[in-house]
């Protein structure tokens, strides 16, 4: 059994307690809600796209330390990225936490991929993987649906 400290690293606890970009965006261009019916966690991800670039991104809702930290770290790395870059980061992150074969990301994104690494410990806890991916799925749904994005559910 792995050490819990690898799941609840200081950076996770810090972002879980003091999430960054935890606010409603005034004028989002895209938003979507995510819901985990198993635990009742809810997250709303807000995006302000400027052309192809993510000018601003934020979230609100309630969740466990893992989902809150995942959302917080996600917003930090996504700000300023192009949509294609964001999708590449998600594809890599998703593969890493679900035990897949993580696709390589361009060197320009290597630092951002590394910033998400503290969350990868979640893959040893199958019941908790969805906590880490929920905000990303909401982000993806927001990209797809604009302001009328379909809510995403983990179940």
């Amino acid at each position, binding site marked *: 059994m792995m050490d819990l400290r690898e*799941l609840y690293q200081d950076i996770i606890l810090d972002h879980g307690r003091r999430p960054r970009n935890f606010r409603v965006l005034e004028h989002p261009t895209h938003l979507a809600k995510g819901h985990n019916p198993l635990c009742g966690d809810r997250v709303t991800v807000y995006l302000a796209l400027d052309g192809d670039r993510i000018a601003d991104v934020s979230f609100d809702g309630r969740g466990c330390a893992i989902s809150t930290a995942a959302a917080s770290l996600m917003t930090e790395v996504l700000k300023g990225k192009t949509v294609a870059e964001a999708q590449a980061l998600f594809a890599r992150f998703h593969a890493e936490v679900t035990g897949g074969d993580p696709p390589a990301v361009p060197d320009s994104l290597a630092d951002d991929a590394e910033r998400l690494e503290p969350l990868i410990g979640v893959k040893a806890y199958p019941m908790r993987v969805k906590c880490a991916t929920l905000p990303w799925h909401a982000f993806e749904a927001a990209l797809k649906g604009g302001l009328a994005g379909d809510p995403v559910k983990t179940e």
Partner: protein
Amino acid sequence: MIDGRALRREFPVFEHNPGLVFLDSGASAQKPRAVIDGIAEFYRGDYANVHRGVYKLSARSTDLFEEARVAVRDFLNAADECEIVFVRGATEGINLVSYSWGGAFLRAGDEVVISDVEHHSNLVPWQMACQRAGAKLVVAPTDETGEFDLGAFEALLSRRTRMVAVTHVSNVTGTVLPVENIVRLAHEVGAKVLIDGCQAVPRMPVDVQAIDCDFYVFSGHKAYGPTGTGVLYGRRDVLEAMPPWQAGGGMITSVEYAGTEFQEPPHRFEAGTPDIAGAVGLRLAIGFIEGIGRGAIQEHEAALTDYGVDVLSRIPDLRLVPGGQRRLSILSFNLDGVHPHDVGTVLDQHEVAVRVGHHCAQPLMDRLGVAGTVRASFGIYNDRDDIDRLAAAVEACREMFSR
């Protein structure tokens, strides 16, 4: 006095998972060797379909199946074994009543009263039955101490009340509801009463005639029996007035294309081949419980509950969900600033198995103003040491999240 640790030897799961602190019997109880081995033995030596064959093996299987019904009758102190319907679980029992009785007797303008601590399985079937009939779902409150508010309940009753469906013991707060008083008040206005006995049956004596309810349901798997088994008790005259719910083999006396004659209860409500081995296993579970004695079990678990309240109350930042004046075997709590799922993961790392989340009682979570809770629930194999281990793990969690 029950020695939980000694009883653990009867449960192979603890041999296979040494060090496990199992505090989730409220979700499902572990199985004693007598049940596990007895089911295998039945399949080896006595199994055939029931109520069908003219051969000896089928007769023996049928006898064992029907003897299980008699054992359940005695277990609940029902007046007659025809009042015992085998179902897949309490959920199916409630659905059976909500469709069959609800379809026949619920009308537009009628009211169904439930409590605000119901499991979704004693809430959603009634919500749906009310929608079908144009009836109204009315919710009777518990007070801020977690106690069922009999005065408020009485004020909600009227001639429009057709059904009162309440739990015997809350699966979230552990509150024991005053079912005898609830039944008396409901009967005064002519309403029927269904009691969800899932959390009560494994841990306290239950006498359906003394309670005087019209229906009583429980799940076998929470009472040390196999999954997929459950019981609907229905008073004979009430069951006899109800139409079939599911149709199929075994529930008819004659079938023609022009129409079908149905069996009397209980077989009217048991379409298809039943879970024969499940019924045999349930009977063994009942035998196991009765061998220890429900009075002794109640005493044991009440003492554990008191000890748990005492120990958990000493932990800073821990908020215990109130459980009224009488609370049995279930303790729900939250740790300030820590999400229940994070608590659950930390506890699991300490080999302490608890349930976290909404416990299939979302409206109650909304009322308590929480996303979920951590719930520890006890069984006969638990002892004080388990509660000390729980408290130590909760302390470790608190320290981790306050660093």
